[in-house]
């Protein structure tokens, strides 16, 4: 009895904070997305009207929403595999018994993860500057003409993808590294005795053994990449030609620039549903392949 009371007392502060400042707002967002909450309602709640699913239906007819969704999907579809491949490649290299200075390399590769996103985004903006940037200068040496990285609608999103890979690959690398260390060595020895090549060992031992880790990393990375916001906010402001407006960037502008909070909530919920759907499909797929 005493422990039960104590349990509630100890859990209460956290539950109150999470309930009031997360649970409640999430439910409120759902309700808000069914209203026409805008600047007028912000000033005088009497203006508020229930509009059912109008916000959602209207969004589906808004070209800018589709554009934002398309940009975000582009970022996820190309950025996530690129990120995971970079993480896995780096982890495999670091895992090799031939590595000297392992601790130094691990720290160096991980460093971008702990840096402040806004600050390093500012750095990248200058590194990718058309005339003075180091990137175009380096490419000039191999005969590539200067690219207007962040000013050309074709290149802005790929530049942000590169940035995201650079910033994030260390995180999954550490997780992969732990996964690699957990693979029993005798599997490789048996394969070597059978004359399997390095590539065969990778495909038939490493990848299947990493399966569950890959699945977790995939789910975390996908839901993270769907939440793209600060990169375009700092590097491009959604430009050029709105080629880097992400769903959250669109939500931010709708909500906090135009104060269409009802509409913006609908955007947030649609994004949530999309993330939920994609990760659920991925987990199903993983389960069918008996990864988890």
């Amino acid at each position: 009895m005493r422990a039960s009371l104590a349990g509630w007392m100890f859990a209460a502060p956290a539950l109150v904070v999470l309930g009031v400042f997360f649970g409640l707002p999430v439910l409120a967002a759902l309700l808000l997305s069914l209203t026409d909450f805008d600047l007028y309602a912000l000033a005088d709640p009497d203006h508020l009207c229930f509009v059912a699913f109008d916000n959602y239906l209207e969004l589906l007819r808004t070209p800018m929403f589709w554009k934002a969704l398309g940009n975000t999907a582009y970022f996820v579809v190309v950025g996530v595999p690129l990120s995971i491949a970079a993480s896995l490649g780096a982890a495999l290299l670091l895992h090799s018994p031939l590595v000297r200075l392992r601790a130094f390399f691990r720290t160096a590769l991980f460093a971008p993860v702990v840096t402040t996103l806004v600050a390093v985004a500012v750095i990248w903006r200058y590194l990718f500057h058309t005339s003075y940037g180091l990137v175009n200068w380096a490419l000039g040496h191999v005969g590539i003409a200067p690219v207007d990285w962040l000013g050309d609608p074709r290149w802005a999103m790929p530049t942000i993808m590169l940035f995201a890979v650079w910033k994030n690959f260390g995180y999954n690398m550490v997780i992969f590294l732990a996964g690699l260390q957990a693979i029993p060595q005798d599997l490789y020895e048996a394969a070597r005795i059978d004359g399997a090549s390095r590539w065969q060992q990778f495909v038939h031992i490493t990848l299947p053994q990493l399966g569950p880790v890959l699945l977790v990393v995939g789910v975390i990375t996908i839901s993270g990449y769907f939440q793209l916001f600060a990169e375009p906010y700092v590097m491009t402001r959604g430009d050029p030609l709105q080629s880097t407006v992400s769903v959250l960037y669109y939500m931010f502008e709708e909500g906090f620039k135009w104060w269409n909070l009802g509409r913006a909530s609908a955007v947030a919920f649609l994004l949530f549903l999309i993330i939920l759907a994609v990760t659920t499909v991925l987990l199903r797929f993983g389960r069918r392949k008996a990864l988890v």
Partner: protein
Amino acid sequence: MSDVGRSRTHAWLVNGALAVIALLSLAPLAWMVSVSFMPRGEASHFPPPFLPSMATLDNYRALFATTGVARNFANSLLVSGAITVLSLLVNTMAGYAFAKLRFAGRERIFQLLLAALVVPAQVAMLPLFLLMKQLGLVNSYWGVIVPAMATVFGIFLVRQYARSIPDELIEAARIDGAGELRIFFQVVLPMLKPVLVTLAIFTFMGAWNDFMWPLIVLTDQAHYTLPVALATLSREHIMDVEMMMAGAVVTVLPVLLLFLLLQRYYIQGLLLGSVKG
């Protein structure tokens, strides 16, 4: 090629590839530091210089004298510090309760918390802003601190760790007549020390680097945290590369140093947190 020769080539390839990746990882940060010491305008030349022709602290002086970054630095320190201390206390108490104290509905509530992890934080942000407005916390430090005072991740981390505390130890303290608070502070907390260090680093870095919510809830320069201030400054002073790099150094350096000093704990937390799936 002989076997020895082949493995030596292989070692060269592996270490060479790692050296290239390390260079790519660190070069932007090294460039940031270098440019921050360049005389004004030097970085905007072609070919871009790697090192300052003459190292100067002018950019840092100008930054602190003209932009109010000192205030933003203090804001970041205050907000991140408060979030770390408060959330550490709140999360640890809850984590301990979920691990060691039996109470009605415990398992169901914990499942609910884990399920809440799938909801992106941004879904809550619009109503949260309205709530903060009602509470009069918009454009105040508390507006940033309060919603961050408890996290599912923190509770989960502490719970995983606290489960290894032997029940007998807590029972013995109870039989000796110790109150629940005293048991928590004198018996449980000391045993949780490693996970507390991990959680503290994670929380502090997360709070320091956080951008979207502070951007929404803070509305004037005097209250901005460093990332928000830097994002705004970099838009106003877009031509001023050297000063912006000084600003980036000031923003990144504290968390980078913290990580370098305590990286063992940080990596541990990352691995503990990622197996939650």
